[in-house]
């Protein structure tokens, strides 16, 4: 990569890390003008910036508000770069069906996770809130989802989460199940039986990345 292209990629990375939601669009356009491929701009620029923010979040240097803002900055950048990504570009990692289970109308956590998944190259199918248990499997089959992710704020929805996990296991589809949410802890998760539990949004997304990379290695 030429020095000029490197500078542009760095500028994209920095824009994410400094939450420059106002300028990232023009920085992305400049990068394309200078010959940086959209793939390079996303993978080595913005996605690296998101990784940095994610790491800082887990180390307690930045907080949820900054994580959200980084995700929004990423989305703004993708408005410019997304349409320039070619089908052959290996940006997309996999697909995730996400929703808040039936009986629960809270969506903040789900929204944050969905945003970070998109910023990490996942195709996200957001079913919304109060989702009946069979809808998760139905959608997962329809889109051949790699992962079904469920969020909950209310412990009263645990039976519904369990129902989703059991349905997916019975159907024998190649779909991992991930859960997250305020009332969950290691003990309650054991009784639900998902493949993974994210204690926060960043951990949840990292688990998803690990799963799909395992699948790529197997194939």
């Amino acid at each position, binding site marked *: 990569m030429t020095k000029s292209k490197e500078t542009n990629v760095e500028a994209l990375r920095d824009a994410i890390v400094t939450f420059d939601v106002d300028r990232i669009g023009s920085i992305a356009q400049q990068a394309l003008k200078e010959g940086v491929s959209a793939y390079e701009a996303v993978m080595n620029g913005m996605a690296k910036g998101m990784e940095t923010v994610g790491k800082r979040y887990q180390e307690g240097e930045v907080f*949820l508000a900054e994580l959200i803002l980084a995700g929004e900055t990423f989305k703004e950048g993708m408005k410019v770069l997304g349409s320039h990504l070619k089908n052959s570009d290996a940006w997309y990692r996999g697909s995730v069906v996400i929703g808040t289970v039936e009986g629960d109308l809270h969506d903040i956590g789900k929204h944050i996770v969905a945003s970070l998944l998109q910023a990490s190259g996942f195709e996200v199918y957001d079913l919304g809130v109060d989702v009946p248990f069979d809808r998760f499997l139905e959608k997962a089959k329809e889109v051949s989802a790699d992962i079904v992710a469920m969020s909950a704020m209310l412990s009263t929805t645990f039976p519904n989460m369990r129902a989703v996990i059991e349905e997916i296991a019975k159907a024998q589809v190649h779909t991992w199940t991930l859960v997250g949410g305020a009332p969950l802890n290691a003990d309650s998760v054991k009784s639900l039986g998902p493949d993974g539990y994210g204690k926060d949004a960043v951990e949840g997304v990292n688990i998803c990345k690990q799963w799909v990379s395992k699948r790529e290695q197997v194939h």
Partner: protein
Amino acid sequence: MLKNHPKDDMITALNLREPERVPVAPYVDYTYASKISRRKVSEVILGSNELKASVLLQAYERHHYNWIMVFDNPPRDWRQNVTIKDLGDKYEVQNKDAGERTFLLPKDGTSIYPVGDVTVENAAERFELEIVDRDDILREGRCEVTKIVKMRAGSEALVTAVVGAPFGEVLLRLGLTQGATCLYRKPDLVRNLCDLCLRRYIEEAAALSEAGAEAFWVEEVFAGTDTISPKHYEEFALPYERSQVQALQRLGKPVILYFCGNPMPIIQNIAKTHADAFAFEENKKNIDVDLERIKDVLNGEACLFGNFDAINTLTTNPGEIEEKVKQMILKIGRGGGFVLGTGSPITKTVQPENVDAMIAAARKYGRPSSA
């Protein structure tokens, strides 16, 4: 033979002295109270103020804890100004009045207000509309639940009105995405909205005080470090918490600040609000709320509410509950200035016998250390 009334024990603890028994102040809202009355939650929420008060009083009479929380005081004729759509397993309640909000109401669950119902463009205007003068609040019957509860049980239990906190309300109404962006891009808007909220809450508190509220429970829902940085807490949330606490204390009533989320990195600052008492959530969202450390920081200058686990422990069995209450009281409940509270609202999956067990254990182990 107990000399003090249950309410006296609450007041004694809030005044940082040691009561005859550790008082118990569980978070009982309409969700659990409706269960005791064998009614659906939606029936109560959509019902009259008289029904709301009666349900809270029935729960109190069932358990005889030391306080009664009062919430959701809509205007007397509020049903005339809403349209209610039946969506099957829930209702959509739309307010025709621009100053009120639309919410969803599961048929057996509590109201869910949409997060992010205002935009950067209309937020200030909406918040202005929501400021109602104290006299109008009283005239419209918005404090009837408080009045009825005070009349019927005010001699026995501390009538405590629940109010929001400015910063948390602003973040809730803007939504986390818009709110996070505004903290960085439009800080003046955030401050302006907090100012407007503060004005609204002060008017509401004045009316509630006149109606009979004897204490205030201020809920700060989005200011913990699981959401915002310590810097943003200090800049945006703390000044308004302080102002609100001072304003409510000027009404002559103690203020309990219920701080949701992670308080630990900012506990020294939270203490600077100078609330009369502090309450926190139970350990969840991977947050370890260290009450022993919090007690050290408060240094005997404020009352501490125990955050008994309403989610995982109160759903177990009386034996385990008794043991956990005993541990909590032995660790931080001796010497006065302590109230056994729950970290979050009691849900409808909790058996009443478990609540009884929690209260009985507090009364058994919560005697003065000299006894």
